[in-house]
């Protein structure tokens, strides 16, 4: 056999349409953007005030909580996990931070210090809860769904317990001190929007530009392959939950000054919203691939929908949720077509 005469690879593949798949892949990524643009056009048509700077800032500011949590959720979902507890976790953290600040404010003599320490506490608590999830899931080998369904109940129960069934409320003067974190602006842009932006950028960097982010994607794509590539699968997974916990902590930091209280209904169903933001943003629930940009857009998109519904009253209020549902499905349809 004289194969050395072969021109072999030269002939191959000359005909293949290399450009086309990448271009649809690109287009595909634009699904949520297209959805968002269409929605904004619809919003402007329905109510001229929609397209004002004020309204835009309002929407972005309120997206911040869910958006920040969604950034963390994005990591968890890409790695193939899920976290149902984020809403309760946020509520419990908010409750703890409020109790802490209320107690420390007078005790330390410096309300400012109390607020700052409270902020640190929020992030630390988030990280600790995330760590607990991660350990139960990896070392305990329990389905993430079950672990976080369990802690969903646990976190909320403890908040209810601490609040004695009522609400935990930030003391008034402390509250005034803390309020700027939510209500102040920097260069005309509200603080929460800045925080959201920074978290998203850091999240994007970690996901796309660090080895850790690469491992997260590899694990979600094929855990066995990652393990064979000597990736510390368990540690990477644990870290995704810790990251999410930290994001929840940060989101809570913005939440507390806004409403100044935590009650058993705080954060209800945030988990669904956060997960929905991630998935509307084009990440597959099965993990493997996803994008922070998509997630951010997904989160904004969800708040724009309810903003538009607030700004118009074309249909029965009872049907708001139906419109929301339909829009979500339509947006997802626009950006479908992976398989």
């Amino acid at each position, binding site marked *: 056999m004289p194969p050395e005469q072969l021109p072999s690879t030269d002939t191959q593949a000359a005909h293949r349409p290399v450009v086309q798949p990448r271009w649809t892949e690109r287009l595909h990524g634009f699904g949520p953007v297209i959805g968002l643009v269409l929605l904004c056009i619809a919003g402007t048509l329905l109510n001229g005030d929609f397209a004002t700077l004020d*309204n835009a800032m309002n929407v972005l500011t309120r997206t911040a909580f869910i958006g920040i949590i969604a950034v963390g959720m994005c990591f968890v979902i890409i790695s193939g996990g899920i976290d149902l507890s984020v809403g309760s976790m946020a509520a419990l953290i908010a409750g703890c931070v409020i109790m802490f600040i209320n107690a420390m404010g007078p005790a330390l003599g410096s309300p400012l210090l109390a607020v700052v320490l409270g902020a640190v506490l929020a992030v630390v608590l988030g990280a600790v809860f995330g760590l607990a999830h991660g350990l139960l899931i990896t070392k305990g080998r329990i389905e993430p769904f079950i672990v976080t369904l369990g802690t969903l109940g646990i976190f909320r129960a403890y908040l209810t317990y601490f609040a004695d*069934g009522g609400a935990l409320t930030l003391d008034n003067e402390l509250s005034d001190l803390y309020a700027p974190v939510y209500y102040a602006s920097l260069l005309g842009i509200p603080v929460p929007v800045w925080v959201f932006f920074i978290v998203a950028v850091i999240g994007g960097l970690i996901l796309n530009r660090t080895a850790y982010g690469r491992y997260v994607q590899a694990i979600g794509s094929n855990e066995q392959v990652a393990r064979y590539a000597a990736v510390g699968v368990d540690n990477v997974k644990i870290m995704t939950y810790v990251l999410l916990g930290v994001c929840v902590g940060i989101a809570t930091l913005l939440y507390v000054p806004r409403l*100044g209280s935590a009650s058993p209904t705080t954060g209800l169903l945030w988990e669904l919203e956060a997960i929905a933001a991630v998935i509307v943003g084009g990440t597959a629930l099965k993990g493997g691939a996803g994008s922070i940009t998509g997630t951010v857009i997904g989160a904004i998109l969800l708040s724009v929908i309810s*903003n538009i519904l607030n700004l118009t009253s074309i249909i029965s*209020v009872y049907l708001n949720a139906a419109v929301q549902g339909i829009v979500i499905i339509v947006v997802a349809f626009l950006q479908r077509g992976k398989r």
Partner: protein
Amino acid sequence: AAETVNLGVSIPAATHSFMGGINYWANQAKKDLEKEHKDLKITIKTAANAPEQANQLQDLSTVTKINALVVFPFESAALTKPVAQVKAKGAYVTVVDRGLTDTSAQDAYVAGDNTAFGKIPAEYIAKKLDGKGNVVALRGIATTLDNERMDAFNSVLKNYPGITLLDAKYANWNRDDAFKVTQDYLTRFKKIDAIWAADDDMAVGVLKAIEQAKRDDILVVFGGAGAKGMVKTIMDGKDPRIQADVSYSPKFIYDAIKLTAEARLKGEKLPATTIIPSVLITKDNAKSFYHPDSPF
């Protein structure tokens, strides 16, 4: 009329019958009042949770540009700041039902009487049982409001050492949960004299559970709020266990809107606090609490 009144109404979404009533009465008010007054515009927003309500308040203020607000806060503490912000933008604020933690954030307060909501059933039950017997209670969802009612109930029972409150569990203002909790109460306690269901919706589940267990020791089932079905039962005298209820009508949202709108149209103010009393509903006065068109 000095100027047009652009009135915003912010209420919780209709997630259970009582809120369904609130929604009904709010819409009713819009219909009646807008017909009556040419220069009045009412915008109603319903929220599924506290942050959403805060968002809606913001939208009402910055986009709809309301100059008067009637708000039924999801939670007192959480909505204090957002309401204060609306007020700071110059709107006249009437708060309904759940008072804010900082009263300077509101111009007027119109409310039902949650203390009476807990006190009246306790007194009624104590009287019915002659100060002796076993009582179980169902609670709503863990909230300040629920705490207030429970505390009032407890404080009355303290005066009746012969009455034991066997247990009080959450049934989330939900018929199904009330059914299950009652089933288990019935398994656990062989003799129960009265059940305080604390809400007419929950009372429905309680009654079904009793029926299913074929228990006849329960003499009193006391709901709360005066839902039309319950009031009808009292009117017709259909069920010996249900002879009384305590009023807490969602219609107060109608009153609040009407009072606010009319006062603002005339440029007047409301009294700082208007309490719409909760009263005992019995066969005698039931008719005046019966609104067959309302969903509640």
